[in-house]
């Protein structure tokens, strides 16, 4: 007789997913890793884990492709099958937390793409009830910005931002997916005030980005793996909508705490500039 499955419900971005396993040790790992994101909500989706013999985490590219009505998600260290119509799937992997994180991120990226949201390679924080996102190439300063954040700022993530459309724009949610800072984000959400693409420089300044350039940079940093024309079309539409509804700027910064004065004043300057000039003008430090 098969061992009974035990379940932990993990709710990231307001989407509860039941993760089930027969292995007590793996269940403990799940609970510890996603502590703070465990939920008693009724799960919308279900993912069954079956453990394999240990395999090293793979450097291979992940493949996410359709096979009939299912999604197949494969990398050297895991194989998953996901039926989006019934919201159920199965995963074969070893008890490696990094494989687990990867599977969950990919699954959320598929769910979000259908709902007009996305995962972004960006740090995000809440300041005065508004979320600020910091994206850029590796080394651009995402972790530095979160390290420099003044007291009272809530960290949503230093690595993977979770974005969903809302009535008045987009909302950013905390995630347990950590980067260099290795600090889990808070499980809360706030309306997005701005997305900054980071560049280090000799002074602090904020500059406008043309819409097409903003879309190009956004698409480059969205986590999306599916080889699926319909979802790519939807994602591009979402990126254009995001650019139309959220201020996107280039933030050149000298890495000390003063850059946060500029970020915290962004809303005031943005509103004032909008009032002065309907096309907006750059805000400089």
């Amino acid at each position, binding site marked *: 007789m098969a061992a009974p499955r035990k379940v932990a419900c993990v709710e990231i971005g307001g989407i509860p997913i039941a993760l089930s396993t027969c292995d007590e040790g793996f269940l403990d790992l799940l609970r510890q890793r996603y502590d703070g994101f465990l939920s008693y909500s009724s799960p919308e989706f279900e993912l069954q884990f079956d453990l394999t013999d240990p395999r090293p985490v793979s450097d291979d590219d992940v493949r996410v492709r359709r096979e009939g009505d299912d999604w197949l998600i494969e990398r050297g260290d895991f194989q998953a099958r996901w039926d989006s119509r019934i919201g159920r799937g199965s995963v074969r992997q070893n008890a490696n937390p990094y494989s687990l994180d990867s599977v969950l991120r990919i699954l959320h990226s598929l769910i979000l793409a259908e709902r007009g949201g996305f995962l972004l390679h960006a740090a995000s924080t809440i300041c005065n009830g508004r979320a600020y996102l910091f994206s850029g190439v590796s080394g651009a300063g995402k972790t530095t910005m979160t390290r420099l954040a003044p007291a009272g700022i809530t960290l949503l993530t230093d690595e993977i931002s979770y974005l969903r459309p809302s009535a008045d724009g987009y909302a950013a949610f905390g995630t347990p997916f950590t980067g260099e800072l290795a600090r889990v984000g808070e499980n809360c959400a706030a309306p997005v005030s701005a997305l900054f693409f980071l560049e280090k420089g000799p002074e602090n300044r904020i500059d406008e980005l*043309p*819409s*097409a*350039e903003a*879309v*190009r940079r956004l*698409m*480059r940093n969205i986590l*999306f793996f599916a*080889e*699926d*024309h319909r979802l*790519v*079309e939807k*994602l*591009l*539409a979402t990126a*254009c909508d995001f*650019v*139309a509804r959220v201020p996107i700027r280039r933030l050149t910064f000298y890495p000390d705490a003063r850059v946060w004065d500029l970020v915290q004043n962004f809303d005031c300057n943005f509103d004032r500039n909008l009032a002065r000039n309907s096309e907006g003008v750059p805000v400089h430090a």
Partner: protein
Amino acid sequence: MPENCIYIARSSAIAARALAGEMMVMNSADSTFFTLNEVATAIFQAADGRTPLREIVRDHICEQFDVDPDQAQADAEQFVTELSSHGILLVSNQPLASEAPR
């Protein structure tokens, strides 16, 4: 290939979106991303697989933009070659069925 026999059609493997007067095109197979300027957008939108490139240049480029016809034709052929190498446009010396909705 004689230049007056070039037919172009948009690939079905692309996603395209207009924003602020520019066309953004993404190849869903390899995620390459292009931003087209006004002239390139006009050619891209007219790529129905049935209209020869020379007619597209004459009717959509020379009519709307102040450009030398020979230079416009040369630029269009270069643009078509580049986008076809990335799988964005299909090129043939026979009429093609356009694969993507406008």
